[in-house]
């Protein structure tokens, strides 16, 4: 059994995620939406921390909260006049969306309950996981080495940078 503190912590984070993600997709003001997204992302990072994946959490905060959300905000600033509301939704679209998301939720729920036996499990101790190890793994070529994907992502990022520049370049 886990410690009560962890559980309470988890519940709070989970609630935060749910509430803010609902808000993020339902709010009419796009800037608020971005802000809610920020909270969701932070909460996600919190979950990572709770899982003892500190590096992941850090990356999450740095890349998402620090990078992406800022990008969003800038994009919103560039494309929207302040105070503009989103247009009201057409009902068939809403129904379609509800059906799709409902079915998605149901599906995920079914899948998750297949693993319900893990519910009561407490976190087992993870081996010592340090940044050096992570770095080694990222750049090694043995069984648990991720050099190839790492390089692939590097190239991808490079491509994105070039692509982004080309696309956004003023003509």
């Amino acid at each position: 059994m886990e410690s009560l503190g962890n559980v309470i912590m988890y519940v709070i984070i989970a609630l935060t995620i749910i509430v803010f993600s609902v808000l993020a997709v339902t709010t009419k003001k796009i800037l608020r939406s971005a802000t809610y997204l920020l909270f969701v992302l932070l909460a996600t990072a919190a979950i990572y921390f709770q899982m003892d994946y500190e590096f992941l959490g850090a990356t999450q905060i740095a890349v998402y909260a620090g990078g992406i959300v800022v990008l969003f905000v800038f994009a919103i600033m560039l494309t929207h006049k302040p105070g503009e509301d989103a247009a009201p939704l057409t009902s068939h679209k809403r129904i379609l969306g509800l059906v799709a998301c409902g079915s998605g939720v149901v599906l995920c729920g079914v899948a998750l309950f297949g693993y319900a036996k893990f519910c009561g499990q407490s976190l087992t101790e993870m081996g010592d996981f340090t940044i050096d190890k992570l770095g080694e793994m990222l750049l090694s070529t043995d069984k648990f080495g991720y050099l190839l994907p790492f390089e692939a992502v590097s190239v991808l990022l490079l491509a994105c940078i070039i692509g982004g520049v080309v696309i956004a370049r003023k003509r």
Partner: protein
Amino acid sequence: MPLSSTIYVLAIPFFMFLFLGLVGVKMPRKITGVLGVLGMAVTTVWAYAIAFTYFFGDGPQKVNDVYQQLVTTDWTWLSFYADKLVVKLGVLLDPISAMMLVVICTVSFMVHLYSLGYMSDHDGNPEKGFQRYYADLALFTFSMLGLVVSTNIFQMFIFFEMVGVSSYLLIGFYYGLQPANHASKKAFIVTRLADLFFLIGIMILSFYTKTFDFKEMMGANGGTICNAFTSAQGLTFMGCSVTGWALTFIFIGGAGKSAMYPLHIWLPDAMEGPTPVSALIHAATMVVAGVFLVARMFPLYVLEQGAMDIICVVGAFTAFYAAAVACTQSDIKRALAFSTISQIAFMMTSLAVSSAQGKLIGGHEAGLGYMASMFHLFTHAMFKALLFLCAGAIIHAVHSNENSKMHGLHKYMPITSIAFLIGCLAIAGIPPFAGFFSKDEILVACYEKGIGWGLWMSMVAGMTAFYMFRIYYLIFFWKKHEVHGEHAPKDQPWTMTLPLIILAAISVVAGFVPFGDLVTWNGKPLETHMNWSVAGASVGIALIGIGLATVMYRKENPLPDKLATMFKGLWTASYKRFYMDELYQFITHKIIFQGISKPIAWFDRIIIDGFFNLLGNVTNSASFGIRKMQSGSVQGYVSYYIIGAVLLAAITGAVILCI
């Protein structure tokens, strides 16, 4: 002349047909006509030589005074199976075909000659389509000759079709005129309908006997019927023997060509063709094809009493019916046409009654009716051709078919008048003219079958005399002729007169041909003797008929009109040919066209086509419906994707659970 050269009798007209049809069109009209006549003359001489050799020469055709069936040419034309069931085209000579060669060639030659004059205007210039006319005549002559010399039933069918077509072409010679157009169509279709039955009959017969060949089927001279036929007689279909069915169907085929009731309706209309054509095809030759067919298969019919009875009844009824109608017709050609029907029915009946003497089959008396029928065929061809050619001369002179436009022509056209009178006397059966002898034999045969048949046919013979003289008087006497137009009617050029004279001469003497010695069903000579009581009675009846006609129609008087009003219903019915045409019209137009064809066409358009169009439309609209989904909206795609994924997962889950 060797008998093996018979094939040339056929070859010449066929060549003339091709020549006149293909080359003749480019030549002057007159020359083609002369060429046609010359060709036919050669053919006629040749045919006479053949017939003479056959009947009187020495050779394989006559063994111990019995005429044999000779096959002089045989060419495999179409083989259905490698060795059995083969259609051959060949030449079969036996008494009846030799006799028919003579009949056909004589009449055809007369008609060829006559047409030179008839098909020209009064200045002697040939009409438009002259070449075509002669080509068609040659084709017809060829087909008819081919028919009579057929070695097998299938060849006969082939030439049945051929004569049908040439008759179609000739009836429709004036194709610009609507009545001719309709008449030719009607003639072809009605005979075609009959030929359908003929074909079915052939198929049934050949199915059981495995042969088409007459000689194989019936043996030489009808002596030995092939086993397959006799064994098939035992098989029954719907209560009658299959061979009975087959022979009845074949008879229907013949009845169509021979205009037996109720398939006679085409013949009166066929008179729309040029008159010489009517003389050749619709009086002398083609219409007796049915009689010839039955005669050819006589040995088989003798074995099928049921079929014979049908023929007998149909023949006797047709004879009476046609005679009754002929009494009231005002169009002389139609009257003659009904007279033809009646006379052919005489021949049919005569053939049919001869089986009544079944007890004597192979014996002496068996073939009296057969012989009489052939005899009558021969004489009738001559005098009926004569009558038609006379009618043609009259029509040529007054430009009308209606006897109301004629009257009193005796003064203007004496030769025609006399020739016509000879024809009338011959058909009425007054001795010593040809009709007397042949008709007398027929009546004898009928009396031998039963007194009822004899009386009935005698009565019809009396009617014959009456209506023929009615026509005669109405044309040539009755009252003074009113001259229309500038030309008074007059006798015709020699090309038309000569045939009249020749045929009149034949009609006078043909009765003295010793037919019993020459043409019998088994080739053995048949002794005939005058049955004076029958002969006397029939002459008496004929005289009564003539007398009646004389009283009523010799001079203009109100008696006929009075009688007509007295029996108004009957008269009108007879004038309208007892409404047979209307009945047919009803059947073809109302039932076949409106009742079958139209609904089928509708069904085709609406139901079947509609079904396929529906398929097309459904596919089409389904595609349009699906096309909407391909809207380019990513959100839509995502939702479909999700739904699909969920469904897939659900199905997989369900399947896993089930297992």
